């Protein structure tokens, strides 16, 4: 595998929330544990996984948008430089842009044209905004509308245009496609692709795996707040090349394939089992699944499963990089 320059590197990220239960009793909820993802130059890395597996939190953690009661451990670095709270504030909206999940991130009291232009009225900005609107088949008069006057799909396109307005190095797209029809969703994906091909990075958070498979280079699979597998896109062609039982179950649930359901639900953060979070639903689970589960590198990807034979064990995040090549 060719070594690319890293844009975003997340190592052993843990996020927990402190919550008050009844009265003054406090509980700590570990929502993300030992999560590692990196995005290189020219790469689209898709993060897929069950709803509630912490995908959006990851985006918010990178951008420093978590609420005050969150505790974050682990390392997040951007182009080799450790991201501190101050540094994030300087970078976000400029070098790192977020395409948020919900349309409610738009300012309801501001016309969308001005929002996309980030309130600038100079000629260049207006031209660029008009071109972006044209690219996304938004009528120019849409610029004069308020967010509540838009359909869901139009608002999505506004969010996309808004992120592409600046020239960021990294786009974090949090579920950018629901509400878009297929041609528009594919157009958005193609734009991410050409954005990445210019030497930028995209972290694409989605559960639309099929769409992600069309444009991404690698797929990181999340389950219950941790990365269970990182696979190459080509691994998704057949079930056998996938490594983790959860990824295989996902594969079998594709509407085009088996449309097979799996019993049970992802465990709630308060009653997370020790060891592998997928064990209660896994056909291969045994007593060893309750212990520490090391990350293994195998065939260009990684997997966190004791049942996976072969591959090399990675001890902690730091050594991961040297083993990867």
């Amino acid at each position, binding site marked *: 595998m060719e070594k690319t320059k890293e844009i975003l590197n997340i190592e052993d990220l843990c996020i927990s929330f402190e919550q008050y239960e009844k009265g003054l009793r406090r509980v700590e909820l570990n929502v993300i544990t030992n999560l590692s993802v990196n995005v290189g130059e020219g790469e689209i890395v898709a993060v897929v996984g*069950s709803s509630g*597996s912490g995908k959006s939190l990851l985006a918010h953690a990178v951008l420093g948008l978590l609420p005050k009661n969150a505790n974050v451990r682990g390392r997040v670095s951007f182009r080799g430089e450790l991201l501190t709270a101050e540094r994030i504030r300087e970078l976000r909206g400029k070098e790192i842009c977020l395409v948020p999940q919900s349309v409610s991130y738009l300012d309801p009291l501001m016309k969308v044209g001005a929002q996309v232009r980030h309130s600038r009225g100079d000629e260049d900005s207006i031209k660029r905004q008009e071109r972006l609107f044209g690219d996304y088949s938004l009528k120019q008069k849409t610029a004069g509308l308020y967010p509540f006057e838009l*359909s869901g799909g139009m608002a999505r396109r506004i969010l996309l245009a808004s992120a592409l307005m600046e020239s960021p190095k990294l786009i974090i797209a949090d579920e950018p496609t*629901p*509400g*878009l029809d297929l041609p528009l969703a594919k157009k958005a994906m193609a734009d991410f692709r050409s954005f990445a091909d210019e030497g930028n990075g995209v972290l694409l958070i989605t559960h639309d795996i099929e769409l992600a498979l069309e444009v991404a280079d690698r797929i990181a699979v999340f389950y219950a707040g941790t990365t269970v597998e990182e696979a190459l896109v080509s691994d998704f062609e057949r079930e056998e090349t996938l490594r983790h039982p959860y990824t295989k179950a996902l594969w079998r649930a594709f509407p085009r394939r088996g449309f097979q359901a799996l019993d049970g*639900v992802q465990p709630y953060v308060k009653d997370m089992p020790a060891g592998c979070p997928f064990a209660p639903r896994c056909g291969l689970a045994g007593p060893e699944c309750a212990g520490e589960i090391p990350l293994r590198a195998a065939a260009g990807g990684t997997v966190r499963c004791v049942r996976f034979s072969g591959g090399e064990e990675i001890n902690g995040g730091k050594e991961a990089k040297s083993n990867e090549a």
Partner: protein
Amino acid sequence: MRLEAKDITFGYEKDRPILNRVSLTVRETERVALSAPSGFGKTTLCRLLAGYEEPWSGQILLDGRPLPKKGYCPVQMIWQHPERAVDPAIRIGDTLAQCPDLDPAVIEGLGIEKDWYHRFPGELSGGEIQRFCIAAALGGGTRFLIADEISTMLDLITQSQIWCFLLAETEKRKIGMAIVSHSEDLTNRVATRIIRMDRR
């Protein structure tokens, strides 16, 4: 039984109709997928079918009669954003308790667990809330279900769990469905008929 939209015209603003003379029939044994580009008014059509809006002209008819104005509506809608469809300040179990004549088998079939009942919507994932919303739409009197992008925000496993249950349940109880989804793979899998709408 059949659910009909007869020549309906509707818009949210005066003189700006979103739907112009749209007609559509769904029979009790059918699952009809509506496919159209973004912004076409699919959600609006769904809201009309479920009686949330009154058309400017034309009628929504259930077996030739207008939808009842009071009581449990036999046409139930499941929404795209479950977390917005429930009251965040009410425990989810209490929200579900408002649904009349709910068969306990539905709750079981959807994989709803007993200890979720005491949680507030903020303590459940989107997929878990959506299961409650589906259960609440499947009260004893339901004849038709309108499903507007009900699984777009769910992962594939949850999606197939929910759909496999819905297919079995609606076939058993002869509940007709109108489905909106952007995923062609999904509609090919679950719909018995696909209607493509386009601007004239």
